[in-house]
């Protein structure tokens, strides 16, 4: 039963992608401006670190080459997050009662919600981030790394999409209980800024917050540390910790979604 449902949803992916491609081809100017803006965004952060480190020196373990890599990983994470960012509309869909449209379809309402407005414009952002990371690995001779570290860093970076997306989705789901959840959602979005900072250099309380509550640390800081500082055993330990966090998040996510749906009424949550 579960496998059938899973297979059914997998089969729908090409259709969702095809729809997204058609939509994007209608708005070419917006598409290219968006990509240009993403490149500029990454450039601004690189310039920021160049100026800052030039004036005050390295931020703890993080010198300019590490910051370049950090910016690359943060760009990859934001790209992946943007692809499914339509979830930010959940509070509005619940309040206006439009969630009904998803509930009557023979597809999981949450999956339909994020896939129906798949944001393909974010894919180039992942490409920009990947390019920055690869160039920093090639260009900066002071960064030494092993192939094993690259694989672990890549996995952590990939899974970091879930560690940031799931808490955001849960914040959006708070609409089922508190009604207007936009202010919480917007505050959460502001926290994404911290992906661009070397969170391991923050005070202990912030490190705990960004590791366990909003695990942004896995988006960029941990992959950089895996490539430049940690041993392979430490890196594997961090990967395992990330997987544990994701498991807990998925459990909480399912719990909140099911409980929230029970509270939902056709005229709004």
């Amino acid at each position: 039963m579960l496998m059938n449902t899973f297979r059914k949803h997998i089969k729908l992916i090409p259709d969702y992608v095809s729809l997204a491609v058609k939509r994007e081809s209608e708005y070419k100017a917006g598409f290219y401006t968006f990509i240009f803006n993403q490149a500029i965004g990454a450039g601004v952060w690189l310039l920021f670190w160049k100026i800052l480190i030039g004036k005050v020196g390295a931020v703890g373990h993080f010198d300019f080459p590490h910051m370049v890599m950090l910016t690359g990983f943060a760009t990859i994470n934001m790209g992946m997050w943007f692809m499914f960012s339509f979830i930010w509309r959940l509070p509005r869909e619940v309040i206006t009662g439009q969630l009904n449209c998803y509930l009557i379809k023979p597809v999981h309402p949450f999956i339909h919600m994020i896939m129906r407005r798949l944001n393909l414009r974010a894919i180039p952002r992942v490409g920009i981030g990947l390019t920055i990371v690869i160039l920093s690995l090639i260009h900066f001779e002071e960064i030494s790394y092993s192939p094993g570290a690259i694989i672990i860093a890549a996995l952590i970076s990939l899974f970091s999409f879930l560690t940031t997306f799931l808490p955001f989705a849960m914040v959006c789901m708070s609409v089922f209980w508190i009604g207007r959840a936009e202010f919480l959602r917007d505050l959460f979005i502001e926290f994404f800024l911290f992906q661009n900072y070397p969170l391991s250099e923050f005070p202990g309380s912030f490190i705990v917050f960004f590791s366990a509550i909003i695990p942004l640390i896995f988006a960029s800081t941990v992959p950089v540390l895996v490539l430049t500082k940690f041993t392979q055993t430490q890196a594997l330990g961090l990967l395992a910790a990330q997987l544990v966090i994701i498991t807990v998040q998925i459990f909480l996510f399912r719990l909140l979604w099911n409980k929230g749906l029970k509270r939902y009424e056709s005229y709004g949550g």
Partner: protein
Amino acid sequence: MKALTANKYLVIFLTQFKNLLEYRVNIALKLIRPIIMTAAVASLWMVLFQVSGKDTIAGFDRSGFIFYLLVVRYIAIFSPGGRLIADMNEEICNGNLTMRLVRPMHYLAWLFFRALPIPLFCGIMGVAMITAGAMMFDAVMPSGVRMVIFIFSVIATVITQYAFYIGIGILSFWVYEVMPFDRFFRTVNNLLSGQLLPLTIFDDGVRNVLIFLPFASLAYNPAAIYTGKIETTLAIYVVLGQFFWAIVLWLMVIFAYNKGLKKFEAQGG
């Protein structure tokens, strides 16, 4: 006749002001958010102070830096935000602008007075909060003259901010999707306005150019006047420069709006 014209915009302003009561939680969070974000960003700067071993960075000591970040965050509250652009985009592209044009009001003035109350209220409250905070913690307070210059600087900031945002919205006459332009503006603004870094971190030549650009008017200039980083005589010239840019930008906005109106058709731009 003129009194009547002024009256109708005042009515719009006051009506929107009453809406404040409807969004109490959002407004409370809007006022608290800068403190949370400043606390988080400031902790990174404290690390920078510690690792660099410097007493001052970019002309600011530790407490001065935190204060600068806080003032910049609260000044950003005056901004109307992307919602204004999204609303303009929808009205122009859907053809709903027609409904506005038949009313005895100038569309741009209507937009300005409709969007102004909430940011204005929050901004004033924010500045009052930091001033009260500065008094409580014996921080350096602006003198009477400097306070007057600061108020004029903030007025110029608000006018310039609206010119930028409405200007981006007006692009809807030519481009279907304008939100990428909003993001582009924010990205560039982050660096050039002094939100990420105070402009004093740049070398003299670059800084002197940046101070007189319209971006500096959006954050650095008022914050630097408030925190005493710009001496009183220069501050007067800086504020005059701010008003110069505010007028230039508004003239450009009005010009673009008139051009756009000629292109506008009832079924959409």
